[in-house]
């Protein structure tokens, strides 16, 4: 276990280190996000009860570990977890939400923007090109930041000097990718939501974003083993997102 490095501006007392419980909470959250809203949760009824139980455990962890000077991310995450717990407990959530999403997709496909994109190959190609530029920024930022947090790259340089610009590159890349991705998604929304690779891509993206949010909340920003693991996991997840996206386009 290395020394704790704080990136936050608050000079106040020591913050808790990430232990096995913290890593377990993140693993549970990733499992929950990946499985909670998918068909597996509907087909296999025990998953619903399991997800609800895991939600309860996550909230318990969060409340126990929440420092007195909690930040906004903690509060938002706690509200989100409570909402998920209620939704998971109210049986029809996964199926009903998927059906509602499919109806919404039909509306999206009929929009003027979707029709314009569907009818123009060059516009689709240009959007796809900028989507890949966004993905490259995300991949590069995630690799640099993850390798620094993991202590593999630039171990002698202050973590903030590497992780902060890497985080900005990820956010810029994600912004480009989300805008272009939403536009590319619009003409084939219903096909996309039913595609296994697309679902996998979105699930991995949510898991990667969750890792990103945890790493960039101040009290997780340390040089211990758990943070290193999270940093490398985030890099791997973003790369898996890129691979799943490739699979979705190529095997559609």
């Amino acid at each position: 276990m290395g020394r704790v490095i704080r990136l936050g501006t608050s000079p106040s007392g020591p913050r808790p280190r990430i232990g096995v419980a913290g890593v377990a909470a993140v693993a549970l959250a990733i499992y929950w996000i990946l499985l909670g809203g998918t068909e597996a949760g509907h087909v296999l009824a025990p998953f619903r009860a399991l997800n609800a139980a895991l939600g309860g455990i996550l909230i318990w962890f969060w409340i126990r570990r929440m420092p007195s000077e909690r930040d906004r991310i903690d509060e938002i995450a706690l509200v989100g977890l409570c909402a998920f717990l209620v939704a998971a407990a109210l049986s029809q959530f996964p199926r009903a939400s998927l059906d509602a999403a499919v109806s919404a997709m039909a509306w999206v496909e009929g929009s003027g923007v979707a029709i314009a994109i569907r009818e123009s190959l060059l516009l689709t190609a240009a959007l796809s090109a900028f989507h890949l530029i966004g993905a490259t920024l995300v991949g590069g930022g995630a690799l640099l930041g993850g390798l620094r947090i993991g202590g593999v790259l630039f171990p002698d340089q202050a973590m903030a000097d590497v992780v902060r610009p890497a985080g900005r590159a990820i956010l810029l890349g994600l912004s480009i990718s989300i805008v272009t991705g939403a536009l590319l998604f619009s003409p084939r929304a219903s096909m996309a939501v039913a595609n296994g690779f697309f679902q996998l891509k979105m699930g991995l993206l949510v898991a990667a974003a969750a890792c990103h949010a945890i790493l960039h909340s101040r009290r997780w920003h340390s040089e211990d083993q758990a943070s290193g693991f999270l940093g490398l996991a985030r890099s791997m997840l973003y790369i898996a997102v890129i691979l799943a996206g490739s699979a979705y386009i190529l095997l559609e």
Partner: protein
Amino acid sequence: MSIPQIAEWLEGTSVAVLVRESAWGFPIVVAIHILGLTLSVGMVLWFDLRLLGVALRGSSVSAVYRRIIPWAGTGFALMFASGAILLAAYATSAHGNVYFRAKVIALFLAGLNALVYHRFTERHRSRWDEAARPPAAARMAGLISIVAWATVILAGRMMSYTMF
């Protein structure tokens, strides 16, 4: 042999036929190509940003180069190997494609820019290695590299939509 004849010969090689005719060959090679691109361009971008004086200013230019290049080099090796296989598989279509030509020109520009940087600009690096803001020639090399690689990505993606 003319270029169209070379393209036809390339398409007849066993690797090209395998990529073109197998169900998984093309998707796997393209996925490796994109992975290589993310690794190479995604990492070399940080060296370019250091040359521009925008990021990683706490490390010297040479230190950033030394640490980034093994990762970017691995990405470039993956990208060029998979790109060569893809080119062989669809050489005649690529030869007539305007975006392929733009991509080749951008690749040539990126290579030339790297050569000029290492041959001339870097010669006096000891004077500005630690500087937060390197001299104009180094900053220009970083900027040209970013523009050239962005053009490679844009043209490459446009190529895949207009070639088949």
